């Protein structure tokens, strides 16, 4: 029994952490955390991160990272805003297509030229931010007012549910999902077993970009404008959620979809709980940073790597 607990600590600790955080903040906030009004706040808190994490999971399972997520959200949002000022209905398709295209470029550069993902996506993030400034000047851009109608709690809730269901099924129970884990576990073996490693990696990046496109649409219709700060810091939140959820940074067969859910929820509960206490955003980031390091420290499987880098 004790052995099994130790063996499964990667799965148990984040879950326990979530339960503890919920109970702790529920009590200390006087029952306000899980209450009718606050659950909408929680949903909005979780929404972006859960979608972004669902997309990047396919990439992280392959052992790659995407640091351009925030920039893709900003850039897709900008392009979608411009398009929507001509025809309002174009906002969503343009946001998705732009996001997918940015991810596809990442994929081509990484998988095609063999450049490590963190270099490529970091570079990509500067490139996209540059384009954003070129398109927006230094100010911001409004979007048609009617798009704001889509920013309702039911739409958000069902969009999130759909994303969760689709990604859960595709990641855990489809060929593509299995191929992602195989590439993360051992690319050479995957290749020799007939998996198209290039295609798998390419699609992984594209998936991550597509998720960012979706996030960008909901970000701009919520604020009603897009500015150069749209999406900034998004990649850090997503990475945080994944790590806190128990995801291994090297990917492979240990990657599970539930890490996305647990991590996103835990992030949302902690930051919302801290807000309820009246703690400001900067201090919240400090606390999140500490939790992040602590989470990785206890969940990182040191047996799988010979030397810790």
């Amino acid at each position, binding site marked *: 029994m004790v*052995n099994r607990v130790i*063996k499964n600590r990667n799965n148990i600790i984040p879950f326990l952490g979530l339960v503890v955080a919920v109970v702790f903040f529920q009590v200390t906030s006087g029952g306000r955390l899980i209450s009718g009004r606050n659950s909408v706040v929680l949903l909005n808190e979780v929404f972006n991160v859960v979608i972004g994490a669902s997309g990047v999971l396919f990439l992280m399972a392959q052992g790659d990272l995407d640091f351009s997520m925030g920039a893709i959200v900003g850039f897709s949002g900008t392009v979608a805003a411009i398009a929507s000022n001509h025809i309002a209905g174009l906002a969503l398709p343009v946001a998705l297509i732009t996001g997918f295209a940015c991810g596809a470029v990442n994929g081509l550069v990484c998988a095609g030229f063999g450049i490590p993902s963190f270099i490529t996506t970091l570079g990509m993030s500067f490139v996209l931010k540059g384009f954003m400034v070129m398109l927006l000047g230094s100010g911001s851009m409004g979007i048609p007012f009617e798009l704001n109608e889509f920013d309702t709690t039911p739409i958000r809730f069902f969009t999130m549910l759909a994303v969760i269901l689709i990604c859960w*099924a595709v990641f855990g*129970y*489809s*060929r593509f999902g*299995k*191929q992602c*884990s*195989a590439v993360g*576990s*051992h690319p*050479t*073996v*995957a*290749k*020799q*077993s*007939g*998996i*198209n490693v290039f295609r798998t990696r390419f699609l992984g990046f594209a998936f991550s970009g597509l998720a960012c496109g979706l996030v960008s649409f909901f970000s701009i219709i919520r604020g009603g404008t897009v500015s150069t700060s749209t999406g900034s810091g998004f990649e850090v939140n997503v990475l945080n959620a994944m790590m806190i959820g128990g995801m291994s940074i090297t990917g*492979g*067969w*240990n990657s599970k979809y539930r890490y996305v859910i647990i991590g996103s929820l835990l992030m949302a509960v902690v930051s919302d709980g801290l807000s309820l206490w009246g703690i400001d955003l900067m201090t919240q980031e400090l606390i999140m940073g500490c939790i992040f390091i602590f989470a990785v420290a206890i969940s990182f499987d040191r047996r*799988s790597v010979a030397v810790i880098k």
Partner: protein
Amino acid sequence: MDSNIILEVRDICKNFDSTKALSEVSMQVKAGEIHGLIGENGSGKSTLSAIIAGTKRNDSGTMFLRGRKYTPQNILDANRQHVSMVVQEEGTIKGITVAANIYAGKEKQFTRMGLIRTKKLREAAAAALEKTGISSIDPMVPVNRLSFEDRKLVEIARAMLCGPDVLIIDETTTSLSEKGRNILYRIMHSMRDSGKAVLFISHDIDELIEQCDAVTILRDGNVTGNLDKTQMKPKAMKELMVGRNISNEFYRSDYDCRYEPEISIAARNITYGGIKNLSFEVHKGEILGFGGLTNCGMHEAGKILYGILRPDTGCVTVHSGTEIHSVHEALQNHIGYIAKDRDGEALMLSGSILENICLPSLKKTEKYGFILHRNQMTFIAPYAAKLHIKMTSPDEYCMYLSGGNKQKVSIAKWLANEADILIMDCPTRGIDVGVKSDIYKLMTELKEQGKTIIMISEELPELIGMSDRIIIMKDGKISTQIKRSSTLSESVLIQYMI
């Protein structure tokens, strides 16, 4: 206590999770002795040697070195007490030079003001290589440019550095050629003659009998026998290892070279690196053996057939006339490939047995586009059973399996994908007799079913014992093709190899 005993191991136990790797193992190694350690895969010999070398800790039991209690904290601590080891799998660090590898962890003696003096390091490394009798290796070459054999020799030089009283050699000879073996044997003999001891681990019973003065036999973590020179008889040793009677003859019993006339795969005028104008045909129901020295091009030939390497000129065709240019095409034409480097190319060690077996056949496990664990279980069950994979559950990680069991998984992978043409690169490298005979039996069975097997091997008895035809390669060219016969001897093959 007998003062002649240099190393004593008493009641050593070691568990991994729930599996007992060693239970109350005791053994005595005398000074001036080459002590053999033999057992099937998973019998615990690598674990025992790792404990002695300080890379693993025992759960209970004690060790004595020259009568004093011996508890090595790590490999460097063991080195300081003059115990060192050459490991079975790759033990060199890629990307740095031979010299840096030899002195890895001991660089301090070459530093001045925190900087390493490369010249001194090179001289010392050259001297170390010289002392071990290896003159062909340049100490300043990055280790990954060396062949597998040369890298092993570098490891041997490194192990000799601490002037060991006890040298552990774990299954090293399987990856060495004649030349390398002779170097190793010379070192072993000089250790024995100077009153030190060698713990020699090997699968090759004949080699063990030839080299060792005493032998300890392990089975499932228990010592089943401590034999001295006079008691070492192959049949008795095999029985102690396996725990059942094993027939001496585990190769094919027939001596007719027979296969169907239909050609299943052919290579035409292939040129790649050292390979020059290579052409051959393999028939349905044939076992084609490929032999030669390690870098004669036979391993590359296997990879070219499977589409991993693209030849500069020439092509590979299957019987329908389709050309093979990629792994994808090879799979579509039912070709399977088992790489020589089991851990590095054939298996995902951090994946489960189930995921490994299913990997090439993911499409077959799909139902309405979904892959369920339950369906995967039923899919692999017949193959896991057929190959007798030892496991507690198919979800067990491959990294915890023994060498023989790993090989069974990688064979099961291709059986499950219903490969008609199976390319096996060193199918029995580092595998004990029990599993070996299982694999040979399976190969014969596949041949009977009309499948084609291409066996690339560095072991001559296996080539002679199993192949319908043997192609011997030398310097990238076919030096001869020999048909199966009962009179074929190793010396004939060697003469074409060198």
